[in-house]
């Protein structure tokens, strides 16, 4: 048995405090009726399924249908990941979520020099339609919803998916799923951008328009706070920047001539679930309420579906520790519970080994089981918004909302989010919060079990998933064979058409990209054409 050496356990007996949330927001001794003075229960809290949707977007919530259990997954080659998908589906997962490797997300093929060492490491290697066909082999796309984390090359990867559906004989009208397609948070947090902001926004508006016309059940964007939070933001910053990104997308799309009620029902959101239970629940409740007001008041949406915020949640990778990794199961449970108490529509629970590598099959199964236990054993899904009316939670929800409107005013004054990003505003706010948190941890104002307190020595190592370089060899060989076999004249002509259309900058590029993909042009080749027209984005100096 490992021997526990307890460091800094004086925290347990010494006077405790300061009392703050994980985001540093002060928390008072107790909350009472007085704290609800500025809250009108009918106006601000209301009923689930009715405006302003604070308590949930459906009257029955999980009594009608549980959330979708959707584990983000991808590694190695398309064959490797296809096997993992079948495994997860056999164990009761109810939706798929594709993790692509970094070369794909950055618009490089697996045989590009920049891809050295990266092939299949952070996700699955997808270079062409051929790989996408393998990825969804024996997975009927008409029967399952699929989410894809595709940001800069979203239009291309979505085109590959649509082409696989054609091959499977599934009409696009039957397809359900989501493309992340959210470039704004890349510039401020995750940094997997390719093109500059303005042409990137054009591509996104193209996908909105195309989806509205041809793939009506598809969520054409997942406006994501997850990565903003992982980069170190507070809960409030995550909420404010994400919802304001939503405002920016709606603004660009309506400016391009799209009618708000045509595309807004297909906008979806993606939030983080960190450790601070009540702060997180308040964040989700405030999100729904604010989005309702934004869509109806700012954009004049008439359809209720345009104003109901649907969201996916992932537990916080950044909260997990490499030390005593089994403790991560407990953290993930608390975080998953927050998401469910906050009314999420789908959930990814992280695996215990994710600070070390991509998850093993065993760790991935425990993560899935964690949500199944919340769903079937905790009793929490039996009633809608079970914590609604709690003095503390309603106060936090109202404060979260107020803080958000304040950020919105500042962002409006800067001329919107693209302009704010160009000025480096959200980036600085997030970096400042990340540094403040790190310092608080190092001063032990924030305790992380196993890291700055309750440290064990000789903790046994755990088994981890290793992706060896043979994956890169297999993938590049497969790619070379494809390049030799395909109709290269057709490839060239579709790519030329794309370049001309991109330079003209008037047409919707989706049909043209679809033609490139159907001809088995690779993702890197397609991105090269777009890079030639749009240029590439470089981060401002730090």
């Amino acid at each position, binding site marked *: 048995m490992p021997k526990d050496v307890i460091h800094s356990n004086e925290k347990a007996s010494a006077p405790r405090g300061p009392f703050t949330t994980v985001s540093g927001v002060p928390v008072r001794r107790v909350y009472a009726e007085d704290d609800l003075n500025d809250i009108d229960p009918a106006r601000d809290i209301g009923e689930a399924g009715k405006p302003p949707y604070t308590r949930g977007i459906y009257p029955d919530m999980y009594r009608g249908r549980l959330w979708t259990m959707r584990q983000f997954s991808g590694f190695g080659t398309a064959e490797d990941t296809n096997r993992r998908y079948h495994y997860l589906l056999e164990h009761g997962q109810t939706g798929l979520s594709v993790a692509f490797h*970094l*070369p794909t*997300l*950055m618009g*490089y093929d697996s045989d590009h*020099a*920049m*891809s*050295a*060492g*990266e092939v299949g*490491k*952070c996700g699955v290697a997808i270079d062409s339609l051929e790989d996408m066909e393998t990825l969804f082999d024996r997975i009927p796309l008409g029967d399952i919803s699929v989410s894809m984390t595709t940001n800069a090359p979203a239009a291309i990867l979505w085109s590959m998916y649509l082409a696989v559906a054609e091959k499977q004989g599934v009409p696009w009208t039957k397809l359900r799923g989501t493309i992340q397609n959210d470039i704004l948070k*890349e510039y401020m947090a*995750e*940094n*997997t951008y390719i093109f500059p902001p303005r042409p990137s926004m054009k591509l996104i508006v193209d996908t909105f328009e195309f989806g509205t016309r041809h793939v009506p059940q598809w969520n054409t964007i997942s406006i994501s706070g997850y990565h903003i939070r*992982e*980069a*170190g933001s507070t809960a409030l910053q995550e909420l404010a920047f994400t919802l304001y990104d939503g405002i920016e997308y709606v603004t660009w799309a309506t400016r391009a001539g799209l009618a708000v009620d045509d595309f807004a029902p297909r906008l979806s959101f993606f939030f983080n679930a960190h450790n601070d239970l009540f702060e997180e629940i308040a964040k989700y409740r405030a999100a729904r309420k604010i989005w309702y007001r934004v869509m109806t008041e700012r954009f004049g949406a008439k359809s209720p579906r345009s104003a109901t915020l649907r969201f996916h949640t992932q537990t916080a990778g*950044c909260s997990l*520790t*490499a*030390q005593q990794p089994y403790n991560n199961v407990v953290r993930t449970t608390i975080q998953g519970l927050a998401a469910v108490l906050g009314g999420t529509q789908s959930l990814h629970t992280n695996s215990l080994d994710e*600070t*070390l*590598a*991509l998850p093993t099959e065993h760790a991935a199964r425990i993560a899935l089981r964690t949500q199944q236990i919340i769903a079937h054993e905790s009793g929490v899904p039996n009633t809608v918004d079970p914590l609604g009316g709690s003095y503390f939670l309603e106060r936090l929800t109202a404060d979260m909302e107020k803080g958000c409107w304040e950020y919105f005013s500042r962002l409006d004054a800067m001329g919107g989010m693209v302009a704010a990003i160009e000025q480096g505003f959200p980036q600085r706010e997030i*970096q400042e919060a*990340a*540094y403040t948190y*790190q310092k608080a*941890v*190092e001063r032990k104002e924030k305790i*992380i079990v196993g*890291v*700055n307190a309750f440290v064990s020595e000789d903790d046994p*190592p755990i088994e*981890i998933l290793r*992706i060896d*370089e043979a994956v890169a060899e297999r993938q590049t060989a497969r790619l070379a064979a494809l390049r030799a076999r395909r109709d290269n004249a057709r490839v060239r002509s579709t790519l030329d058409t794309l370049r001309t259309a991109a330079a003209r900058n008037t047409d919707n590029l989706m049909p043209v990209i679809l033609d490139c993909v159907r001809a088995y042009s690779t993702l890197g080749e397609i991105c090269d054409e777009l890079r030639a027209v749009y240029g590439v984005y*470089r*981060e401002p*100096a*730090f």
Partner: protein
Amino acid sequence: MERPIRVLVAKPGLDGHDRGAKIIARAFRDAGFEVIYTGLRQTAEQVVNAALQEDVDVVGLSVLSGAHMTLCPRIVELMKKEGLDDVPVIVGGIIPEADAAALKALGIREIFQPGASTEDIVQFVRANARRA
């Protein structure tokens, strides 16, 4: 007066996760070091070139993408070729234990895994930076 320690903070490979790199860069500045941050997505050649041009005393690499076993040894090798053997290279990020041992054997001076404190890293740099 002795010149301050000069540190290159570099992000090799395609990985965009820069929370750690930016935190450590700021902690180095707060400690009085001169910090040169390369920005994202540098090739091994670009990193070594920056180390040479900027005449740094330590190179800190941040890798969270899993590509460390390809990228880090290449940087060490190129630094040797450029005569920078006396500039220690340290690595932070998602580096499993077995890889950490292998990287040390290949010439990486120290590995800082998740949970490392900025204070410990600053102290390590103070004690191990190349002396001009």
